[in-house]
């Protein structure tokens, strides 16, 4: 994407990334017919990756962050959007996933949500996307809170639109947990504001240094860190603050689950990394506090315990939900080890996991579209009647196991290198041992869908329609492609990790 093709809009791309889906959501609410709402949403979501990729290309080219001052108000007074390597990369992941699943959504939403509520679904979907993109692009702590709330409120609605009656309860569960998380975050931000007198991330970082020297301020800063740590951890479903996630994923509409699994926790992880590395700084948060130790313990607990839960699930969506909690554990483990290789692995896994997990959930969405259930008992033998759908599922599943030649392996390789670099040899074995459990849960569902005698519903199932198969196979193909071509993941992640470890800029 050459810079000139955007014309005069070029300098305003950062704000457009938020404005376009926001106003898109507004317009969609006026459309009564589901198909029109879908078409407009599709158009909007396809513009977003173009913007994000342009921003990423620009940041990589110049090596400098893009600063966008809203209303031309400079930093301490106005809100500033800041796009650096890390944020541009995460923006790309979120916007691409948001776009790829839209062609799939038409049929799936058409079947799972009544006609009158469909345009609401699409409007809320765009709002959620606005919130997630906003969290990542903003350089302002309070603005991040606002976007966090936008995305959360939208997520409650997305979950509640699920057909199952328990969807309402799950949404309520998430509402409570999400609100607690956001509240803790804003308390932490408030404390930081008291100490530094600013809400801008960069300014906070520069003023925190001197402030810590004063013991009174130091305690306030540590308290703020505690609040933010727990608040954001709730949002990103760090073990043991993950309990909202399995139900939320299980009862949301299929497409919403695929979208949330690929993007929602990723935006929260971004916020975590941003605050820990760029605001509190490595010297304070990583080197002088036991945060790495706590994170390592919780991550490894997630990797094992959540994976075990996945093994014994009978509901495919819940199985994948538990798997997501374990995968968040991998990402946070790399963050905790905080060296170049481990951070590269973590950041690469943000994209790799988004691709693989979205593919897996889309495959389940296609199964649900055909047979109305994703329980193992109903999915038995469905590989024979829906070979293309379940073939894509198998490919993405193999990726999730971290098999070499797939995206999952690349993340694992760098995480392993990071653990060796940190001198934690035992962690190398924990990483590989926990991924063995993923072999078991993926192997189990593989056996059910391919080798078990077909269930009544599986016997009569038809292959998914093309509009579902294309996005599905695009992502399954990407699982393999990203296992060989790592320019888009590892190279960018390595640069972002360098920036994070090198300081604020």
């Amino acid at each position, binding site marked *: 994407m050459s810079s000139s093709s955007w014309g005069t809009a070029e300098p305003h791309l950062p704000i457009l990334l938020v404005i376009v889906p926001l106003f898109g959501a507004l317009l969609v609410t006026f459309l009564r017919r589901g198909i029109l709402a879908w078409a407009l949403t599709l158009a909007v979501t396809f513009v977003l990756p173009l913007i994000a990729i342009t921003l990423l290309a620009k940041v990589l080219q110049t090596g400098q962050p893009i600063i966008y001052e809203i209303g031309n108000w400079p930093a301490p007074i106005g809100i500033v959007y800041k796009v650096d390597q890390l944020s541009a990369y995460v923006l790309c992941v979120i916007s691409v996933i948001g776009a790829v699943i839209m062609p799939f959504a038409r049929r799936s939403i058409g079947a799972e949500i009544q006609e009158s509520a469909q345009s609401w679904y699409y409007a809320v979907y765009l709002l959620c996307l606005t919130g997630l993109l906003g969290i990542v692009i903003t350089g302002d702590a309070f603005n991040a809170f606002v976007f966090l709330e936008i995305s959360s409120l939208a997520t409650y609605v997305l979950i509640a639109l699920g057909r199952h009656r328990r969807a309402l309860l799950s949404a309520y569960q998430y509402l409570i947990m999400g609100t607690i998380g956001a509240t803790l975050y804003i308390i932490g931000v408030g404390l930081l504001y008291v100490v530094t007198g600013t809400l801008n991330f960069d300014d906070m970082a520069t003023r925190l240094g001197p402030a810590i020297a004063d013991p009174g301020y130091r305690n306030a800063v540590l308290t703020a860190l505690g609040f933010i740590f727990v608040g954001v951890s709730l949002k990103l479903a760090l073990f043991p603050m993950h309990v909202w996630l399995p139900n939320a994923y299980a009862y949301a509409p299929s497409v919403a689950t695929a979208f949330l699994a690929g993007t929602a926790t990723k935006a929260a992880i971004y916020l975590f990394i941003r605050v820990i590395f760029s605001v509190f700084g490595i010297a304070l948060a990583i080197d002088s506090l036991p945060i790495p130790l706590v994170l390592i313990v919780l991550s490894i607990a997630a990797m094992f315990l959540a994976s075990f839960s996945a093994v014994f699930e009978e509901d495919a969506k819940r199985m994948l939900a538990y798997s997501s909690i374990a995968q968040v554990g991998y990402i946070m483990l790399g963050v905790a080890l905080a060296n170049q290789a481990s951070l590269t692995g973590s950041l690469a896994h943000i994209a790799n996991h988004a691709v693989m997990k979205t593919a897996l959930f889309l495959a389940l969405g296609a199964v649900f579209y055909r047979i109305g259930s994703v329980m193992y008992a109903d999915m038995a033998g469905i590989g024979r009647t829906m070979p293309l759908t379940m073939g894509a599922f198998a490919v993405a599943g*193999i990726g999730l*196991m*971290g*098999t*070499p*030649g797939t995206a999952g392996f*690349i993340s*694992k*390789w760098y995480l*392993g*290198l990071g653990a*060796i*670099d940190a001198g934690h040899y035992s962690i*190398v*074995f924990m990483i*590989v*041992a926990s*991924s*063995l459990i993923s*072999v*078991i849960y993926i*192997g189990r569902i593989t*056996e059910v869908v*391919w*080798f078990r005698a077909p269930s009544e519903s599986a016997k009569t199932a038809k292959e998914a329609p093309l509009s579902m198969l294309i996005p599905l196979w695009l992502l399954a193909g990407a699982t393999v492609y990203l*296992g*060989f*071509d*790592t320019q888009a993941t*590892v190279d960018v992640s390595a640069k972002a990790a360098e920036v994070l470890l090198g300081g604020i800029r």
Partner: protein
Amino acid sequence: MLTGLTAFSQDMSSGDLIIAAMLIPTAAALLIPLFHRSPNLREAVTLIAAASLAMVTWSLYPRIIAGAQPELKVWEVAPGLDLAFKVEPLGMLFGLIASTLWVVNSIYSIGYMRGNDEPRQTQFYVCFAVAIAATMSLAFSANLFTMFVAYELLTLSTYPLVTHKATPEAMKAGRVYLVLLIGTSMVLFLPAILLTWAAAGTLDFTPGGIIVAQGLEPVQALGAGDAVSKAIPLSPLLIGGLLFLFVFGIGKAAVMPVHFWLPAAMVAPTPVSALLHAVAVVKAGVFSILKVVVYIFGIDTLSQTGAGDWLVYVAGFTVIMASIVALRQDNLKKRLAFSTVSQLSYVVLAAAILTPVSAIGAAMHIAAHAVSKITLFFAAGSIYTAAHKTEISQLNGIGWKMPWTMSAFAIGALAMIGLPPTAGFLGKWFMLQGAVTTEQWFPVAVIVLSTVLNAGYFLPILVRAFFLEAAPVPLHAAGAKNANDTHHDDHGEAPFPIVLALTITASMSVLLFLFPDVVLDLAKLMVAGG
């Protein structure tokens, strides 16, 4: 057509041939489903692919003998992770074995799968072709990463073959297969690769090895270059530990106690047991171990530090234990499987003796065991197809009803015991030579004792087949569980493709004894360091 193809492949560059070796089976895997509805065309695809692949590998052979080691760097996945291929003598040998036997096995498969009316034959041939593609990639891999990719692909592509019958027993075997093979490779093999990378800064297979031992001069003369000078020297204990990770991480070599998957995998259709679980998959295991010993650690590094001494005992134990277990199996395929476990550890043992001569013995044994064990499995499948018998106790007098099958079986059995005029003799001969000249008496004892045991579990089968009267029907012994078994007593030889295939492989076993140079030349090149 054949001569035309040969001429064509001789004009191709070595790099193109390497690519072709991987693309041909891959293309076959993609084409086979298209002919789902016309089995004859579908099988034609398999046969043509197998023949062309053999052509490709055999036209690489003279170039390797002439001293060339063609390389092909396909793609850099990430720094240090190169997808690259290099045909060195050992890989050439493995490639030749796998591709040549694929031709024979395809002929056999057609007879077997049709003769037994197996379901899901298209899926069977597709997975088979993918497994061959993985085998070729593994044989020609130039570094540990490429090897690992191929290794895992081989496991995944053979999993549907193990579970082919979709019975509860097959599912259970599939679970053991997947968890044990993927499990060991993930939990031990992958960390071994990571640690190798951290210690050596490279993953390339390099003559003389890339691991540097503390207190020893790195073997730079052999062209390791910069990589070795950057390497971190390791203590003998660490080197021993790393070797441990590799040996047990490469579960396909079935060194005890990671051998359970192999007998379990015998529920697969016999052509799978024959080519994959007697040749491609298991040989991929011992081949990988041999390659790691020779090109990652280096024979000198291991023998001078003593870091690999324990391996002799582990391998020796496996050889003996597996033979003893084999003695007690009544199921013919199970007995063959434990025999395979035992024979595989011969190769590991030969590698662990750490002399050039024994390494030649290891290479020779890979080839000899491949052609002989495939013959034995072909014979077992032939008996199953013609007589529907699976237990050894049912085989009384069968030699006269199926003379071709059981004569071939006899040749295979002689090779397993290690008697002339079969290729099995040569491999053992070189191993013994290596052990005796370096005065390692434990391996010598193992080889002698296991020869006795091998005779103990193979000769009774031959005695039953040729010298015992068939028992009157119906049998009350194990196996004759239903009345259907009885009418199969009235049988002759198996279908023609099956008999043809097992005759070919049995002759190969003898030919390899008469003309061992095909293998020996390659093996000598390998120990000479390319």
